[in-house]
C-alpha cells in the first residue's frame, strides 16, 4: 500500500537539495502564504508548490492529497460565507467580502498543507532526521521521535484497515452509506488498535536501544549533509519568498 507521505525516489535538484534547505523552502512558502494578502500572491505560491511537485515527479501523488483537501477547503469557504455578514450580498446569504476572505482562507489552507507534504515526499526520513541533527543541532531523541511517529502512520493505518476488514467479514456494516453510523461502528475499534500500538511502540523502543540508540551523537551519522551552492541558492529563494510575501 502506498501512502501520501512515502518517499518517492528521484534524482532531481529538489531531491538532491540538503534536507535542511528543503525544510527551509517549505517553511518559507508557508510563511509567505500567511504574510501575503492578495489573490495573485496566494495563487502564485500555490502554483510554485505545484510546479516544484511536477518538476520532482510527484504531482500525481500530491493530487491524491488534493482530492482530500479540496472538500475540507470548500467546507471552510461555506463557513466563512455563513459567518462573514459585512459587505454587499451577492447570492443568497453570501456577501462579496465573505467570498473574498473565504476564498483566501481556502487558498491558505492548501498553501500551508502542500509544501510540507511535498518536502516529505522528496526526502528520506532518515536523511531529514540526520541533517536536522547535524545542521540545526536538534537533539537526536526528538528527531527520532518525529520520524518514528511519521513512520508509524502507514503501519497503523494498515492495522486499522485489517481490523475493519475482519469486522466487516463478521457482519459489522462498515459498508453502510450513513457516515454517522459508520463512525459509531468504528469507535469500539479504538481498543484493539490502541493495544496493538502500545505493544508496537514498546517493541520499537527496545529494538532501538538494543541497536545502540543511546550511544548516538551528532557525529554518528555516516552520511554528511554539506551545504552546497544550490542550497545557498535555495536559502536565497527562501528570503525572496518571505519578502515577496510581506510586500504582496
Amino acid at each position, binding site marked *: 500500500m502506498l501512502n501520501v507521505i512515502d518517499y518517492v525516489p528521484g534524482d532531481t535538484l529538489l531531491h538532491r537539495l540538503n534536507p535542511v534547505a528543503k525544510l527551509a523552502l517549505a517553511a518559507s512558502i508557508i510563511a509567505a502564504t500567511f504574510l501575503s494578502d492578495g489573490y495573485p500572491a496566494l495563487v502564485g505560491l500555490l502554483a510554485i508548490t505545484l510546479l516544484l511537485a511536477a518538476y520532482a515527479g510527484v504531482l500525481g501523488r500530491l493530487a491524491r492529497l488534493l482530492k482530500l483537501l479540496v472538500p475540507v477547503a470548500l467546507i471552510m469557504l461555506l463557513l466563512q460565507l455563513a459567518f462573514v455578514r459585512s459587505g454587499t450580498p451577492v447570492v443568497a446569504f453570501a456577501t462579496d467580502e465573505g467570498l473574498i476572505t473565504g476564498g483566501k482562507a481556502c487558498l491558505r489552507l492548501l498553501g500551508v498543507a502542500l509544501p510540507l507534504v511535498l518536502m516529505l515526499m522528496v526526502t528520506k526520513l532518515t536523511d531529514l532526521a540526520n541533517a536536522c541533527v547535524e545542521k540545526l543541532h536538534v537533539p537526536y531523541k526528538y528527531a527520532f521521535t518525529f*520520524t518514528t511517529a511519521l513512520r508509524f502512520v502507514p503501519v497503523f493505518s494498515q492495522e486499522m484497515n485489517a481490523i475493519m*476488514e475482519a469486522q466487516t*467479514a463478521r457482519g459489522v456494516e462498515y*459498508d453502510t452509506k450513513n457516515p454517522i453510523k459508520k463512525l459509531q461502528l468504528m469507535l469500539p475499534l479504538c481498543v484493539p488498535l490502541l493495544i496493538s500500538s502500545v505493544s508496537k511502540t514498546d*517493541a520499537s523502543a*527496545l529494538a532501538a*536501544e538494543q541497536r*545502540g540508540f543511546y550511544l548516538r551523537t551528532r557525529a554518528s*551519522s*555516516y552520511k554528511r549533509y554539506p551545504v552546497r551552492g544550490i542550497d545557498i541558492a535555495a536559502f536565497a529563494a527562501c528570503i525572496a519568498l518571505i519578502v515577496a510575501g510581506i510586500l504582496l
Partner: protein
Amino acid sequence: MAAIIEMDGVSFSYDADARRALSDVSLRVEEGDFLGIIGPSGAGKSTLAACLSGAIPHHFTGELYGATRVAGHDTCEITLTDISRTVGSVAQDIDAQMVASVVEDELLFGLENFGVPHDQIEGRIARTLETAGISELRHREIATLSGGQKQKVAIAAILALEPRVLVLDEPTAALDPVSSQVVFDTLADINRRLGITVIVIEQKVALLSSHCNRIVVMDRGGIALEGSPHEVFRRAELLRELGVDSPRTARISNSLAAAGLCAADDPCLNVEEAHDLIAQIIRRADATGPGAAGADAAPAAADACAAGQTSATPHAATPSPHAPRRPHAEGAAPVLTFEHVGFTYPGGGASVEDLSLEVYPGELVGVVGQNGAGKTTLTKLLNGLLRPSRGRVRVAGLDTGENPVSAIAAHVSTLFQNPDRQICKNTVIEEVAFGLELQGVDSREAQRRAETVIDRFGLPRDEAPFSLSRGQRQMVALAGVVVMNPDVVVLDEPTSGLDYRECMTVMETVRDMADKGCAVIMVCHDMEVVSDFAERIVVMADGRILGRGPASELFADSELMARASVTPPQVIDLAGRLARDVSPTFAHISEVSDIVRRVKELADHA
C-alpha cells in the same frame, strides 16, 4: 569450547504476585552453538530469550532471581547497550524493529550508533548484505519487500554489528515454507562460516531438527529436555506429553523402533535419513528371509502407530484415521463457485486471474502456494471483502458482486490469522455472541448459544479476551466462528502463532464442523497440517490456479510442487522416493501409520 552465555538458577516473574514465567533455569550456551528453543505457548520461551538478550532486567521489570552471564559479565551489572554489543537480537515484530525506509539506511543505523569507524562502514554493509544474500536489495524501499526479504533485512541489520550471539524470536512465523527454509539456511551459514552463536525460538520442528546442533524443550517455565536433535526427538513419549510436535520422519522411525525393526536411539530427522533407514530395513529383511523381523512385535507396533498419530482417534486398524468419510459431494449442489474470476487491485500490484473452483458442503479444501501467490485475495473474494472485476463468485446462493458483505457474513465466517483484529468486546461471552447479534439474533438467544460454545471450548466466560494468551484468544475467535453455524468457513493461516496442541484443537474443531456439513476453505503454510486434514487442495502461483485435486495426489506431483514453490509434506515426499527406489507399493501413501504398516508387511513377506 567456552560458554558465551551462562544462566544460573534464573527465575523471573513479570509481576510480584504473578506466576513465574521462568523458574530456576540453568543453561549453558557454548560459543558456536546453533541452539533451538521449542515448547508449548506459555512455556517461557520469549522470556528466556529476553533474559539472554538483556531485555530482562533492563527493559521488562519484574522479580528476577539467579544470574545470567553474557561473555563473563552479569547482565544486571552492565547496561543493555553493552549487552547488545555481544548479543544481537532480532525482534518478533520486525515492523517495529525497522527504523528506516531504505535497506541501506536500516543497516547504517546500528553501525552509526555503535561508532564503527566511517571508513569501515562501507565494507561492513557490502559484506553483511552478501552474507544475508540480499546484495541486490541494497537500495530498495523496505515497504516494497516481501515478508521473507524483510526478515533477511532485519537479520542483516543486526548481523552488521558483528555480534557474537544472535537471538531470534520466531523468525519464520509469517513466512511460507520455502522462505522459512531460506532464512534458516542463512542462519546456518552465518553460524558455520562466521562462527556466530545462533539461538532461535521456533515452532517448525522440521527446520529446527535439520539445522540446530542443540535443542532445548521448555515447559511451564523450566527446561524439560535438552540435547542434540537426535537425543531430543528420540523421546517421542515425553514430547507428546508436553504438547511438542516432532518431525513426521522421527515418528516413523520411532514407530519402527517400537516394532523392533530398527534401533531405538536414532530417530530420523529428515526425509533422506528415513528413506535410507527403510531401504536398509527392507534389504536386511530380504537377506535374512521370511518372518525374520518384527512378526511378534506387530501388535505393539500397531499401538505405537496409533499413539504416534496426530489425532486422538483410536482406530489403529482403519486404513487412515484422517481419511474423509463425510457425506460427500455426489449429487449435492456446490455451496461455493468461482467462475473465471479475476481481480486487479487498484493502482496495479498483485492480481488474480481466471480462478475457477467449486466447493461442496462438508468438504475441507486447502489452498497452498507461496507468499504472494494470491491466496489471501482468493479468501477475500470469497467472503465479499473484494468484489471480482471479472467473472462471478457465488456463495450459499448469493452473488458476492450484488450483496453487501454483512449479508454474506450470515453464511460465511472467516477466522483470521491474527485474532486480535477480530476481538473487540470486553468479555468472552459478549465477543462470542457479537456475531449472532449482528445478524439480528435476539440478544438473550445469542447469549444462550454463545454460552453453549464457550462451555464446549472450556473458555472463561467473563474474562476480558485481551487478558488471555495468544492461543486462547485464537480459540475465542474460533468460538465466534463456530457459534455462527455458517455454511462456509474460511481459515486464513489458522495455526500460525499456535503451539502444536492448540493447533490440533483448532483443526479438530474445524473438522467437526466439516463433518456436520460446513464447507471449509483453509489457507495454510503448514503442509503437514494441510495433508492431515484437507481432502482436496488448490495449488496457486502468481495469481493463478495451477492445480486442483485430491491432496495426496497433488502433493506427490513433484513437478507441480516445484512450479508452485511448495515443499511437499515429509510423508508424501518419503513415500514418493520409496516408491521409486524401494517398492512401488509405497506410492500415494500420506500417513505415518500407513508407511509403518507397509514397511512391516514388506519386512514380514520378505
